[in-house]
Protein backbone atom coordinates (compact mmCIF):
# COMPACT_ATOMS: atom_id res chain seq x y z
CA UNK A 1 0.00 0.00 0.00
CA UNK A 2 1.48 3.33 -0.96
CA UNK A 3 1.17 6.22 1.42
CA UNK A 4 0.37 9.36 -0.52
CA UNK A 5 1.67 11.52 2.30
CA UNK A 6 0.03 14.45 0.56
CA UNK A 7 -0.12 17.81 2.31
CA UNK A 8 -3.48 19.29 3.20
CA UNK A 9 -5.65 19.79 0.16
CA UNK A 10 -8.85 21.77 0.31
CA UNK A 11 -12.12 20.29 -0.87
CA UNK A 12 -12.21 22.98 -3.54
CA UNK A 13 -8.71 21.91 -4.64
CA UNK A 14 -9.83 18.32 -5.00
CA UNK A 15 -12.83 19.34 -7.07
CA UNK A 16 -10.71 21.54 -9.33
CA UNK A 17 -8.18 18.75 -9.77
CA UNK A 18 -11.00 16.36 -10.63
CA UNK A 19 -12.31 18.71 -13.30
CA UNK A 20 -8.85 19.11 -14.79
CA UNK A 21 -8.45 15.36 -14.94
CA UNK A 22 -11.76 15.03 -16.76
CA UNK A 23 -10.76 17.69 -19.25
CA UNK A 24 -7.46 15.96 -19.91
CA UNK A 25 -9.06 12.63 -20.72
CA UNK A 26 -11.29 14.32 -23.31
CA UNK A 27 -8.24 15.51 -25.22
CA UNK A 28 -6.38 12.51 -26.59
CA UNK A 29 -3.37 14.71 -27.43
CA UNK A 30 -1.21 13.50 -24.55
CA UNK A 31 -1.76 9.89 -25.55
CA UNK A 32 -1.00 10.61 -29.17
CA UNK A 33 2.30 12.23 -28.20
CA UNK A 34 3.30 9.26 -26.05
CA UNK A 35 2.48 7.06 -28.97
CA UNK A 36 4.79 8.92 -31.32
CA UNK A 37 7.60 8.79 -28.80
CA UNK A 38 7.30 5.06 -28.20
CA UNK A 39 6.59 4.29 -31.86
CA UNK A 40 3.32 2.57 -30.95
CA UNK A 41 -0.05 3.77 -32.13
CA UNK A 42 -3.15 3.73 -29.95
CA UNK A 43 -5.52 0.95 -31.00
CA UNK A 44 -9.27 1.33 -31.09
CA UNK A 45 -11.57 -1.60 -30.37
CA UNK A 46 -15.33 -2.01 -30.33
CA UNK A 47 -17.12 -3.23 -27.23
CA UNK A 48 -20.77 -3.66 -26.29
CA UNK A 49 -22.06 -4.04 -22.78
CA UNK A 50 -25.29 -3.55 -20.88
CA UNK A 51 -24.95 -0.75 -18.37
CA UNK A 52 -27.79 -0.28 -15.89
CA UNK A 53 -30.10 -2.18 -18.22
CA UNK A 54 -29.17 -0.16 -21.31
CA UNK A 55 -27.23 -1.58 -24.23
CA UNK A 56 -24.12 0.52 -24.92
CA UNK A 57 -21.82 0.22 -27.92
CA UNK A 58 -18.50 2.01 -27.78
CA UNK A 59 -15.32 2.27 -29.75
CA UNK A 60 -12.46 2.79 -27.33
CA UNK A 61 -8.71 2.99 -27.07
CA UNK A 62 -7.84 -0.49 -25.78
CA UNK A 63 -6.20 1.17 -22.76
CA UNK A 64 -9.53 2.51 -21.47
CA UNK A 65 -10.45 1.05 -18.12
CA UNK A 66 -14.04 0.12 -17.34
CA UNK A 67 -14.02 3.06 -14.92
CA UNK A 68 -13.00 5.57 -17.59
CA UNK A 69 -15.48 4.09 -20.08
CA UNK A 70 -18.28 4.59 -17.56
CA UNK A 71 -17.27 8.08 -16.51
CA UNK A 72 -15.76 9.67 -19.60
CA UNK A 73 -17.63 7.92 -22.39
CA UNK A 74 -21.02 7.09 -20.88
CA UNK A 75 -20.92 10.10 -18.52
CA UNK A 76 -22.02 7.99 -15.57
CA UNK A 77 -19.99 10.04 -13.13
CA UNK A 78 -21.44 8.51 -9.97
CA UNK A 79 -18.64 5.94 -9.92
CA UNK A 80 -15.49 7.65 -8.63
CA UNK A 81 -11.79 7.44 -9.30
CA UNK A 82 -9.83 7.53 -6.07
CA UNK A 83 -6.48 5.84 -6.53
CA UNK A 84 -6.81 4.15 -9.97
CA UNK A 85 -4.77 1.22 -8.53
CA UNK A 86 -7.18 -1.04 -6.67
CA UNK A 87 -6.32 0.45 -3.30
CA UNK A 88 -9.43 2.43 -2.31
CA UNK A 89 -12.68 0.94 -3.68
CA UNK A 90 -14.17 4.28 -4.87
CA UNK A 91 -14.59 2.74 -8.33
CA UNK A 92 -16.56 -0.32 -7.16
CA UNK A 93 -19.29 -1.44 -9.58
CA UNK A 94 -21.11 -4.71 -10.11
CA UNK A 95 -20.30 -6.88 -13.13
CA UNK A 96 -22.70 -9.76 -13.67
CA UNK A 97 -23.74 -9.33 -10.03
CA UNK A 98 -20.22 -9.34 -8.57
CA UNK A 99 -18.47 -6.27 -7.18
CA UNK A 100 -15.13 -5.38 -8.75
CA UNK A 101 -12.73 -2.44 -8.90
CA UNK A 102 -13.54 -0.90 -12.29
CA UNK A 103 -10.16 0.88 -12.35
CA UNK A 104 -8.28 -2.42 -12.65
CA UNK A 105 -10.29 -3.84 -15.53
CA UNK A 106 -10.15 -3.00 -19.23
CA UNK A 107 -13.42 -1.98 -20.86
CA UNK A 108 -12.70 -4.24 -23.86
CA UNK A 109 -12.66 -7.22 -21.52
CA UNK A 110 -16.35 -6.66 -20.74
CA UNK A 111 -17.92 -7.53 -24.09
CA UNK A 112 -21.47 -8.73 -23.37
CA UNK A 113 -21.26 -8.13 -19.62
CA UNK A 114 -23.98 -6.61 -17.44
CA UNK A 115 -22.68 -3.67 -15.43
CA UNK A 116 -24.53 -2.01 -12.56
CA UNK A 117 -23.30 1.33 -11.23
CA UNK A 118 -24.65 3.48 -8.42
CA UNK A 119 -26.97 5.12 -11.01
CA UNK A 120 -28.47 1.72 -11.80
CA UNK A 121 -29.00 0.64 -8.21
CA UNK A 122 -31.69 3.24 -7.56
CA UNK A 123 -32.77 6.72 -8.64
CA UNK A 124 -33.41 9.85 -6.55
CA UNK A 125 -37.15 9.13 -6.49
CA UNK A 126 -36.79 5.38 -6.18
CA UNK A 127 -33.81 4.78 -3.91
CA UNK A 128 -32.31 1.36 -3.37
CA UNK A 129 -32.84 0.39 0.30
CA UNK A 130 -29.08 0.70 0.86
CA UNK A 131 -29.03 4.22 -0.59
CA UNK A 132 -31.95 5.18 1.68
CA UNK A 133 -30.21 3.63 4.68
CA UNK A 134 -26.97 5.54 3.97
CA UNK A 135 -28.97 8.81 3.98
CA UNK A 136 -30.86 7.88 7.14
CA UNK A 137 -27.72 6.87 9.06
CA UNK A 138 -25.42 9.62 7.70
CA UNK A 139 -23.19 7.02 6.05
CA UNK A 140 -20.98 9.68 4.44
CA UNK A 141 -19.52 13.15 4.84
CA UNK A 142 -17.93 14.41 1.61
CA UNK A 143 -19.60 11.61 -0.34
CA UNK A 144 -16.65 10.79 -2.58
CA UNK A 145 -16.30 7.18 -1.50
CA UNK A 146 -20.07 6.69 -1.15
CA UNK A 147 -21.06 5.24 -4.54
CA UNK A 148 -18.35 2.61 -4.12
CA UNK A 149 -19.35 2.00 -0.49
CA UNK A 150 -23.00 1.49 -1.44
CA UNK A 151 -22.24 -0.89 -4.33
CA UNK A 152 -19.91 -2.82 -2.06
CA UNK A 153 -22.39 -2.85 0.83
CA UNK A 154 -25.13 -4.32 -1.35
CA UNK A 155 -22.74 -6.99 -2.65
CA UNK A 156 -21.37 -7.81 0.82
CA UNK A 157 -24.79 -8.82 2.11
CA UNK A 158 -25.32 -10.99 -0.99
CA UNK A 159 -21.86 -12.56 -0.56
CA UNK A 160 -22.52 -13.52 3.06
CA UNK A 161 -25.86 -15.04 2.05
CA UNK A 162 -24.20 -16.94 -0.81
CA UNK A 163 -21.71 -18.56 1.58
CA UNK A 164 -18.53 -16.72 0.53
CA UNK A 165 -16.16 -16.98 3.54
CA UNK A 166 -14.13 -14.09 4.91
CA UNK A 167 -11.01 -13.61 6.99
CA UNK A 168 -13.07 -13.44 10.20
CA UNK A 169 -15.35 -16.38 9.46
CA UNK A 170 -15.13 -18.84 12.37
CA UNK A 171 -16.32 -22.19 11.06
CA UNK A 172 -15.68 -22.53 7.33
CA UNK A 173 -18.30 -25.25 7.04
CA UNK A 174 -21.18 -23.54 8.83
CA UNK A 175 -23.59 -20.86 7.62
CA UNK A 176 -22.00 -17.44 8.15
CA UNK A 177 -24.03 -14.98 10.23
CA UNK A 178 -24.42 -11.37 9.04
CA UNK A 179 -22.50 -9.86 11.95
CA UNK A 180 -20.69 -6.58 12.55
CA UNK A 181 -17.33 -8.31 12.34
CA UNK A 182 -18.20 -9.98 9.03
CA UNK A 183 -19.45 -6.74 7.45
CA UNK A 184 -16.48 -4.70 8.65
CA UNK A 185 -13.94 -7.18 7.32
CA UNK A 186 -15.69 -7.47 3.97
CA UNK A 187 -15.90 -3.69 3.58
CA UNK A 188 -12.13 -3.26 4.06
CA UNK A 189 -11.66 -2.73 0.32
CA UNK A 190 -13.56 0.56 0.57
CA UNK A 191 -11.57 3.31 2.21
CA UNK A 192 -13.38 6.38 3.58
CA UNK A 193 -11.12 9.33 4.17
CA UNK A 194 -13.90 11.02 6.19
CA UNK A 195 -14.17 8.03 8.49
CA UNK A 196 -17.89 7.38 8.09
CA UNK A 197 -17.31 3.71 8.82
CA UNK A 198 -19.49 3.27 11.89
CA UNK A 199 -22.49 4.93 10.22
CA UNK A 200 -21.97 2.85 7.09
CA UNK A 201 -22.12 -0.21 9.29
CA UNK A 202 -25.37 0.97 10.84
CA UNK A 203 -26.89 1.47 7.40
CA UNK A 204 -25.81 -2.02 6.36
CA UNK A 205 -27.13 -3.56 9.55
CA UNK A 206 -30.54 -2.01 8.97
CA UNK A 207 -30.73 -3.28 5.40
CA UNK A 208 -29.51 -6.75 6.37
CA UNK A 209 -32.09 -6.96 9.15
CA UNK A 210 -35.06 -5.72 7.15
CA UNK A 211 -34.28 -8.06 4.28
CA UNK A 212 -33.34 -11.06 6.44
Amino acid sequence: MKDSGSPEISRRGILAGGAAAVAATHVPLADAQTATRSGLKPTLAKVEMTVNGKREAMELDTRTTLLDALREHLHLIGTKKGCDHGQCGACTVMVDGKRINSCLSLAVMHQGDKITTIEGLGTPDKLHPMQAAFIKHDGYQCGYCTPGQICSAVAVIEEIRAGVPSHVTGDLNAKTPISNAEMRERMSGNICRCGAYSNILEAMTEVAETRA
Partner: protein
Amino acid sequence: MKPFTYERASSPAAAAAAVARTPGAKFIAGGTNLLDLMKLEIETPTHLIDVQELKLDKIEPTQDGGLRVGAFVSNTALASDARVRRDYGVLSRAIVAGASGQLRNKATTAGNLLQRTRCPYFYDTNQACNKRKPGSGCAALGGYSRQLGIIGTSDACIATYPGDMAVAMRLLDAQIETINPTGQSRTIPIADFHKLPGTTPHVENALQRGELITAVTLPKPLGGTHTYRKVRDRASYAYALVSVAAIVQPDGSGRVAIGGIAPRPWRVDAADAQLRNGSKAVVAPLLAGARPTEDNAFKVPLVERTLAAVLAETRA
Protein backbone atom coordinates in the same frame (compact mmCIF):
# COMPACT_ATOMS: atom_id res chain seq x y z
CA MET B 1 0.12 3.30 -20.28
CA LYS B 2 1.70 2.22 -23.55
CA PRO B 3 -0.67 1.37 -26.40
CA PHE B 4 -1.37 -2.28 -27.09
CA THR B 5 -3.52 -4.46 -29.29
CA TYR B 6 -5.97 -6.90 -27.75
CA GLU B 7 -7.38 -10.30 -28.64
CA ARG B 8 -9.41 -13.03 -26.98
CA ALA B 9 -7.97 -16.50 -27.42
CA SER B 10 -10.35 -19.38 -28.08
CA SER B 11 -8.24 -22.32 -26.87
CA PRO B 12 -5.34 -22.76 -24.45
CA ALA B 13 -3.01 -23.94 -27.24
CA ALA B 14 -3.98 -20.97 -29.42
CA ALA B 15 -3.36 -18.58 -26.52
CA ALA B 16 0.08 -20.05 -25.86
CA ALA B 17 0.98 -19.95 -29.55
CA ALA B 18 -0.23 -16.35 -29.86
CA VAL B 19 2.05 -15.16 -27.04
CA ALA B 20 5.01 -17.09 -28.43
CA ARG B 21 4.54 -15.67 -31.93
CA THR B 22 3.99 -12.01 -30.93
CA PRO B 23 6.94 -10.13 -29.43
CA GLY B 24 5.83 -8.14 -26.39
CA ALA B 25 2.63 -10.17 -25.93
CA LYS B 26 1.28 -11.17 -22.51
CA PHE B 27 -1.70 -13.07 -21.16
CA ILE B 28 -4.25 -11.11 -19.16
CA ALA B 29 -6.62 -12.82 -16.71
CA GLY B 30 -8.26 -10.73 -13.96
CA GLY B 31 -5.94 -7.86 -14.84
CA THR B 32 -5.62 -6.74 -11.21
CA ASN B 33 -1.84 -7.02 -11.13
CA LEU B 34 -0.94 -6.56 -14.78
CA LEU B 35 -3.02 -3.40 -15.32
CA ASP B 36 -1.71 -1.85 -12.12
CA LEU B 37 1.84 -2.37 -13.43
CA MET B 38 0.96 -1.25 -16.97
CA LYS B 39 -0.37 2.07 -15.68
CA LEU B 40 3.03 2.67 -14.10
CA GLU B 41 4.79 1.40 -17.25
CA ILE B 42 6.59 -1.24 -15.23
CA GLU B 43 4.95 -3.75 -17.56
CA THR B 44 4.74 -2.60 -21.18
CA PRO B 45 3.11 -5.36 -23.24
CA THR B 46 2.32 -4.42 -26.84
CA HIS B 47 -0.33 -7.12 -27.24
CA LEU B 48 -2.69 -8.65 -24.67
CA ILE B 49 -4.22 -12.09 -24.95
CA ASP B 50 -7.33 -12.38 -22.84
CA VAL B 51 -7.77 -15.88 -21.40
CA GLN B 52 -11.35 -15.49 -20.12
CA GLU B 53 -12.93 -17.67 -22.81
CA LEU B 54 -10.62 -20.67 -22.46
CA LYS B 55 -13.06 -22.52 -20.17
CA LEU B 56 -10.42 -22.83 -17.46
CA ASP B 57 -12.95 -21.87 -14.79
CA LYS B 58 -13.90 -25.23 -13.28
CA ILE B 59 -12.95 -27.05 -10.09
CA GLU B 60 -13.09 -30.81 -10.67
CA PRO B 61 -12.07 -33.95 -8.76
CA THR B 62 -8.88 -35.67 -9.94
CA GLN B 63 -8.43 -39.43 -10.29
CA ASP B 64 -6.30 -39.68 -7.17
CA GLY B 65 -8.87 -38.01 -4.91
CA GLY B 66 -7.62 -34.43 -5.16
CA LEU B 67 -8.97 -31.38 -6.96
CA ARG B 68 -8.04 -29.74 -10.25
CA VAL B 69 -8.54 -25.97 -10.07
CA GLY B 70 -8.78 -24.23 -13.45
CA ALA B 71 -6.31 -21.38 -13.99
CA PHE B 72 -9.17 -18.90 -14.44
CA VAL B 73 -11.12 -19.87 -11.30
CA SER B 74 -11.53 -16.67 -9.28
CA ASN B 75 -10.09 -16.38 -5.78
CA THR B 76 -13.63 -15.94 -4.44
CA ALA B 77 -14.90 -19.07 -6.19
CA LEU B 78 -11.95 -21.13 -4.98
CA ALA B 79 -12.20 -19.97 -1.36
CA SER B 80 -15.98 -20.57 -1.39
CA ASP B 81 -15.98 -24.05 -2.93
CA ALA B 82 -17.52 -26.48 -0.42
CA ARG B 83 -14.81 -29.11 -1.06
CA VAL B 84 -12.03 -26.57 -0.54
CA ARG B 85 -13.62 -25.28 2.67
CA ARG B 86 -13.98 -28.80 4.00
CA ASP B 87 -10.75 -30.49 2.89
CA TYR B 88 -8.30 -27.65 2.19
CA GLY B 89 -9.30 -25.08 4.83
CA VAL B 90 -5.81 -23.55 4.83
CA LEU B 91 -6.30 -22.58 1.18
CA SER B 92 -9.68 -20.89 1.77
CA ARG B 93 -8.19 -19.08 4.75
CA ALA B 94 -5.09 -17.91 2.88
CA ILE B 95 -7.15 -16.56 -0.02
CA VAL B 96 -9.56 -14.57 2.13
CA ALA B 97 -6.63 -13.14 4.08
CA GLY B 98 -5.48 -11.44 0.87
CA ALA B 99 -6.53 -8.29 -0.97
CA SER B 100 -10.21 -7.19 -0.78
CA GLY B 101 -13.57 -8.69 -1.70
CA GLN B 102 -13.62 -6.75 -4.97
CA LEU B 103 -10.12 -7.86 -5.94
CA ARG B 104 -10.74 -11.49 -5.04
CA ASN B 105 -13.77 -11.51 -7.34
CA LYS B 106 -11.47 -10.67 -10.26
CA ALA B 107 -8.17 -12.29 -9.23
CA THR B 108 -7.59 -15.69 -10.80
CA THR B 109 -5.68 -18.76 -9.66
CA ALA B 110 -2.91 -18.38 -12.24
CA GLY B 111 -2.74 -14.59 -11.97
CA ASN B 112 -2.43 -14.82 -8.21
CA LEU B 113 0.50 -17.27 -8.46
CA LEU B 114 2.18 -14.90 -10.90
CA GLN B 115 1.60 -11.63 -9.06
CA ARG B 116 4.79 -9.62 -8.87
CA THR B 117 6.61 -8.29 -5.84
CA ARG B 118 5.45 -5.24 -3.88
CA CYS B 119 8.99 -3.97 -3.27
CA PRO B 120 8.52 -0.16 -3.22
CA TYR B 121 11.58 0.37 -5.42
CA PHE B 122 10.28 -2.08 -8.03
CA TYR B 123 7.17 0.13 -8.16
CA ASP B 124 9.13 3.39 -8.45
CA THR B 125 10.51 3.63 -11.97
CA ASN B 126 12.96 6.35 -10.89
CA GLN B 127 14.84 3.86 -8.73
CA ALA B 128 17.45 1.26 -9.59
CA CYS B 129 15.94 -2.22 -9.60
CA ASN B 130 17.52 -5.37 -11.00
CA LYS B 131 14.16 -7.05 -11.24
CA ARG B 132 12.56 -4.30 -13.30
CA LYS B 133 15.69 -3.36 -15.23
CA PRO B 134 18.37 -6.09 -15.10
CA GLY B 135 21.80 -4.75 -14.22
CA SER B 136 20.56 -1.39 -12.90
CA GLY B 137 21.28 -2.20 -9.23
CA CYS B 138 19.03 -2.59 -6.21
CA ALA B 139 17.79 0.50 -4.41
CA ALA B 140 16.32 -1.62 -1.62
CA LEU B 141 19.78 -2.67 -0.42
CA GLY B 142 20.60 0.03 2.07
CA GLY B 143 17.17 1.56 1.43
CA TYR B 144 13.87 1.14 3.22
CA SER B 145 13.48 -2.61 3.50
CA ARG B 146 11.06 -3.21 6.34
CA GLN B 147 8.70 -5.27 4.17
CA LEU B 148 11.34 -7.12 2.20
CA GLY B 149 12.91 -10.57 2.40
CA ILE B 150 15.06 -12.14 5.09
CA ILE B 151 15.90 -15.45 3.46
CA GLY B 152 16.44 -16.86 -0.04
CA THR B 153 17.39 -13.34 -1.15
CA SER B 154 20.63 -12.38 -2.93
CA ASP B 155 22.98 -9.45 -3.36
CA ALA B 156 21.02 -8.58 -6.51
CA CYS B 157 17.51 -8.57 -4.98
CA ILE B 158 15.91 -8.87 -1.55
CA ALA B 159 12.26 -8.70 -2.64
CA THR B 160 9.57 -11.09 -1.45
CA TYR B 161 6.89 -13.00 -3.25
CA PRO B 162 4.00 -11.11 -1.66
CA GLY B 163 0.97 -13.38 -2.11
CA ASP B 164 -1.02 -15.48 0.33
CA MET B 165 -2.75 -18.17 -1.79
CA ALA B 166 0.55 -19.65 -2.98
CA VAL B 167 1.75 -20.12 0.60
CA ALA B 168 -1.15 -22.49 1.24
CA MET B 169 -0.59 -24.18 -2.12
CA ARG B 170 3.07 -24.73 -1.24
CA LEU B 171 1.99 -26.23 2.06
CA LEU B 172 -0.36 -28.59 0.20
CA ASP B 173 2.31 -29.50 -2.42
CA ALA B 174 0.08 -28.36 -5.27
CA GLN B 175 1.13 -29.00 -8.88
CA ILE B 176 0.94 -26.48 -11.69
CA GLU B 177 -0.26 -27.74 -15.07
CA THR B 178 0.75 -25.87 -18.19
CA ILE B 179 0.54 -26.02 -21.96
CA ASN B 180 3.30 -24.66 -24.18
CA PRO B 181 3.12 -23.01 -27.62
CA THR B 182 3.56 -26.36 -29.39
CA GLY B 183 0.61 -27.80 -27.50
CA GLN B 184 2.59 -29.93 -25.02
CA SER B 185 1.52 -30.15 -21.39
CA ARG B 186 3.70 -30.47 -18.32
CA THR B 187 3.33 -30.45 -14.57
CA ILE B 188 5.52 -28.31 -12.31
CA PRO B 189 5.58 -28.98 -8.54
CA ILE B 190 4.93 -25.69 -6.77
CA ALA B 191 8.22 -26.13 -4.88
CA ASP B 192 10.02 -25.63 -8.22
CA PHE B 193 7.75 -22.91 -9.58
CA HIS B 194 8.94 -19.65 -8.00
CA LYS B 195 12.67 -19.02 -8.53
CA LEU B 196 15.15 -17.56 -6.08
CA PRO B 197 16.73 -14.35 -7.44
CA GLY B 198 20.43 -15.26 -7.48
CA THR B 199 21.99 -12.99 -10.11
CA THR B 200 18.82 -13.00 -12.26
CA PRO B 201 15.99 -11.54 -10.16
CA HIS B 202 13.95 -10.76 -13.29
CA VAL B 203 13.49 -14.52 -13.80
CA GLU B 204 10.71 -15.19 -11.31
CA ASN B 205 9.27 -18.56 -12.21
CA ALA B 206 9.72 -21.77 -14.18
CA LEU B 207 7.46 -20.80 -17.09
CA GLN B 208 8.88 -20.58 -20.60
CA ARG B 209 7.80 -17.80 -22.96
CA GLY B 210 4.22 -18.46 -24.10
CA GLU B 211 3.67 -21.23 -21.57
CA LEU B 212 0.11 -20.96 -20.24
CA ILE B 213 -1.01 -22.22 -16.84
CA THR B 214 -4.13 -24.31 -17.35
CA ALA B 215 -4.75 -25.60 -13.81
CA VAL B 216 -3.41 -26.14 -10.32
CA THR B 217 -4.01 -29.58 -8.82
CA LEU B 218 -4.31 -30.29 -5.12
CA PRO B 219 -3.36 -33.73 -3.74
CA LYS B 220 -5.92 -35.81 -1.94
CA PRO B 221 -6.97 -34.26 1.39
CA LEU B 222 -4.31 -34.36 4.12
CA GLY B 223 -6.62 -34.17 7.14
CA GLY B 224 -5.38 -32.40 10.27
CA THR B 225 -6.11 -28.89 11.53
CA HIS B 226 -5.65 -26.17 8.95
CA THR B 227 -4.56 -22.63 9.89
CA TYR B 228 -3.43 -19.51 8.10
CA ARG B 229 -2.24 -16.68 10.30
CA LYS B 230 -1.25 -13.38 8.70
CA VAL B 231 0.54 -10.57 10.53
CA ARG B 232 0.32 -7.16 8.87
CA ASP B 233 0.29 -3.43 9.48
CA ARG B 234 -3.49 -3.21 9.49
CA ALA B 235 -6.13 -5.84 10.18
CA SER B 236 -7.30 -6.22 6.57
CA TYR B 237 -6.44 -5.26 2.98
CA ALA B 238 -2.67 -5.24 3.51
CA TYR B 239 0.17 -7.53 2.48
CA ALA B 240 1.76 -9.83 5.02
CA LEU B 241 4.79 -8.89 7.06
CA VAL B 242 4.84 -12.57 8.00
CA SER B 243 2.26 -15.28 7.45
CA VAL B 244 2.17 -18.87 8.66
CA ALA B 245 0.26 -21.65 6.92
CA ALA B 246 0.11 -24.87 8.91
CA ILE B 247 -1.49 -28.28 8.92
CA VAL B 248 -1.12 -30.08 12.24
CA GLN B 249 -2.15 -33.72 12.71
CA PRO B 250 -3.63 -35.08 15.96
CA ASP B 251 -0.22 -36.60 16.87
CA GLY B 252 1.44 -33.17 16.60
CA SER B 253 3.26 -33.85 13.33
CA GLY B 254 2.52 -31.72 10.29
CA ARG B 255 3.90 -29.05 8.00
CA VAL B 256 4.39 -25.29 7.87
CA ALA B 257 5.00 -22.75 5.12
CA ILE B 258 5.81 -19.08 5.64
CA GLY B 259 4.82 -16.08 3.54
CA GLY B 260 6.16 -12.53 3.46
CA ILE B 261 9.80 -13.39 4.14
CA ALA B 262 11.28 -14.81 0.94
CA PRO B 263 11.14 -14.67 -2.86
CA ARG B 264 8.84 -17.68 -2.70
CA PRO B 265 6.57 -19.36 -0.17
CA TRP B 266 9.13 -20.68 2.31
CA ARG B 267 9.05 -24.31 3.38
CA VAL B 268 11.88 -26.54 4.63
CA ASP B 269 11.51 -30.33 5.10
CA ALA B 270 13.86 -30.41 8.10
CA ALA B 271 11.68 -27.79 9.78
CA ASP B 272 8.49 -29.79 9.19
CA ALA B 273 10.20 -32.74 10.88
CA GLN B 274 10.61 -30.66 14.07
CA LEU B 275 6.96 -29.70 14.40
CA ARG B 276 6.33 -31.86 17.49
CA ASN B 277 9.22 -30.12 19.25
CA GLY B 278 7.75 -26.64 19.24
CA SER B 279 8.29 -23.39 17.41
CA LYS B 280 11.93 -22.79 18.44
CA ALA B 281 12.95 -26.22 17.14
CA VAL B 282 11.12 -25.57 13.87
CA VAL B 283 12.51 -22.10 13.29
CA ALA B 284 16.18 -23.14 13.62
CA PRO B 285 16.22 -25.17 10.36
CA LEU B 286 13.47 -23.05 8.79
CA LEU B 287 15.43 -19.80 9.00
CA ALA B 288 18.97 -21.20 8.86
CA GLY B 289 21.07 -18.84 6.75
CA ALA B 290 18.62 -15.93 7.04
CA ARG B 291 20.12 -12.56 6.10
CA PRO B 292 17.74 -9.90 7.39
CA THR B 293 18.45 -6.19 6.98
CA GLU B 294 18.47 -3.78 9.89
CA ASP B 295 14.93 -2.73 8.93
CA ASN B 296 13.43 -6.20 8.77
CA ALA B 297 15.39 -8.09 11.44
CA PHE B 298 12.13 -8.05 13.44
CA LYS B 299 10.75 -10.66 11.06
CA VAL B 300 13.01 -13.37 12.54
CA PRO B 301 11.41 -13.32 16.02
CA LEU B 302 8.04 -12.55 14.41
CA VAL B 303 8.13 -15.83 12.47
CA GLU B 304 8.93 -17.74 15.66
CA ARG B 305 6.21 -16.04 17.69
CA THR B 306 3.56 -16.34 15.01
CA LEU B 307 4.38 -20.01 14.66
CA ALA B 308 4.20 -20.46 18.44
CA ALA B 309 0.75 -18.85 18.42
CA VAL B 310 -0.39 -21.09 15.57
CA LEU B 311 0.84 -24.24 17.30
CA ALA B 312 -0.77 -23.23 20.59
CA GLU B 313 -4.04 -22.59 18.75
CA THR B 314 -4.06 -25.94 16.93
CA ARG B 315 -3.38 -27.80 20.17
CA ALA B 316 -6.04 -25.94 22.12
